């Protein structure tokens, strides 16, 4: 119980927003930059690996297994270890191994590996008959990937993107331990190292709210991009006034 007692070094309640809100801003910037990189690299990479497979558009078993193996390595390392292991690489790119810039590198590496698998999985769920239709309609490989594969998988990709974004929020907190800034950094330095429970609680509330908000937005986008459920949503909203007397 003693740990729950207010500590003399605790940040006063009124001071918490000034500490936590800029950190939230840093987290959003970090996750935002990482997700932009993850989508830009992960979507094409996932689509390429999917189509290098035996029944893909440009099958190449050797290249397929090489790329797939690289992605698996990226997926298999726990983030904390990956982050430390690639410090030389991070320093090569950003010139530093602390701060937001340094956190973005390992987060992007882990995020790309994660999202590549999500993209592959989403593309696998698109009926293969649509690729045949697109081919027979005279589409180039690029056109087929954009329309018959990614285009049809958009709701599933958005669902995956939601999961991926939430994972990146979690990774940003882990990156906080190497001084990356953001909510994770505040939680570690104030909540963990200084036993400031109020700050800890505030970071927890913010993280829960952030993750919940991402999930709600993601779910809404999935519904909006799925014609079947989008139609159901609009029908329900039409019916509702009728039911209310």
């Amino acid at each position, binding site marked *: 119980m003693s740990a729950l007692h207010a500590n003399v070094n605790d940040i006063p309640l009124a001071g918490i927003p000034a500490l936590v809100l800029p950190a939230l801003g840093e987290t959003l910037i970090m996750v935002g930059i990482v997700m932009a990189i993850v989508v830009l690299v992960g979507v094409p990479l996932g689509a390429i690996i999917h189509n290098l497979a035996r029944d893909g558009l440009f099958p190449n078993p050797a290249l397929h297994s090489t790329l797939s193996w690289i992605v698996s390595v990226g997926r298999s390392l726990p983030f904390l270890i990956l982050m430390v292991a690639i410090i030389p690489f991070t320093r090569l790119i950003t010139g530093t191994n602390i701060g937001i810039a340094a956190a973005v590198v390992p987060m992007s590496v882990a995020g790309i590996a994660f999202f590549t698998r999500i993209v592959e999985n989403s593309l696998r769920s698109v*009926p293969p*008959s*649509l690729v*045949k*239709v*697109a*081919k*027979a*309609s*005279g*589409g*180039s490989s690029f*056109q087929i990937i954009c*329309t*018959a594969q990614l*285009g*049809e998988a*958009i*709701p599933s990709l958005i669902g995956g993107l939601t999961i991926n974004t939430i994972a990146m929020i979690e990774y940003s907190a882990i990156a906080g331990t190497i001084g990356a800034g953001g909510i994770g950094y505040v939680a570690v330095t104030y909540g963990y190292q200084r036993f400031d429970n109020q700050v800890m609680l505030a970071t927890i509330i913010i993280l829960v709210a952030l993750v919940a908000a991402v999930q709600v937005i993601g779910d809404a986008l999935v519904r909006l*991009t*799925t*014609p*079947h459920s989008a*139609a159901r949503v609009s029908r329900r909203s039409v019916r509702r006034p009728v039911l209310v007397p």
Partner: protein
Amino acid sequence: MITVEKLTKVYGNGDSAVTVLDNLDFSVQQAEIFAVVGPSGAGKSTLAQCVNLLERPTSGSVIVNGENLSQLTEAQLRAARRRIGTVFQSDGLFSRRTAAENISLPLDYLGVTRADAKKRVGELLERVGLSSHAKHYPHQLSGGQRQRVGIARALALKPTVLLADEATSGLDPASTASITALLKELRTDLGLSILFITHEMETVLQVADSVARLDNGHIVESGRVVDLLRDASSPLGRDLNPAKPALPAAPDETTWFVSYTSAHVPSDWVTRLGEALSSPVSLLGASIETIEGAVVGHAQVGLRAANAEAVIRQAQKLGLDARPAAAHDLASTTVAAPAGQKEPVA
């Protein structure tokens, strides 16, 4: 016009090689619907994929309007595919595109301007009778309507050749009838050569001008549908219009199997045959179709004991082929056999 010459497709090599299509030869004339019918595993889908160039034949050629498509490079293939419209089984629509957007797909790939594409899509929607459904998504359309969208999409680039791969499979009878009627209309109006691949015999009878039966990678029988139906000895002809269950003959009568073999069978042949044989003719069962304006089909009739030769001769005069119903005919037709059951191949 499509000509298929010595088309062979082998999967695998060495000892494990499987010949899926073996030396197929046939051609589909302009404004003709040519059906290829066969059981699952006969090689139908491989044939379809060789014709729309999704698969390269191992040997032999596919010639469309005089151009041999089997020797093209990948880039040329893509251009060549645009000259062949393909109608797939009903699951071939993009779920996130409206009917109009689905039809527009080949135009988008080709890079047609938005205005031109919109105009063409409008024409096509009208052509298939779906103008009022342009903004509907596939899940809002019935199976038959989805297939109309598929046909409109196949026609988007004004092909001269249409390949229908199981286009009516999985549709209810009313939708099948409306799709086959649409295909026949398109064949006549646009002079399309239509290759119609199916496993449904009944649909062949509805839609095709000519038919080939594919079995184990071989064409075992082919010909014009009317000719096959008028040929009492053709197994494919009999499968196209199988005998339906008939009443058993009265004890003093024998059952005869009578088929139309000529386009000029008088419609009152039952009476005429009775008069010629001075014996009443009992109609026990019949399966009659009108194809190309002439009646084809067969009937089972009961006749009082009469000279068999006289029956055959009198029937011949009327354009009919008469045979005493064989034991196996009786077994499959007079016993309460399930409708549509195929007769054993003679």
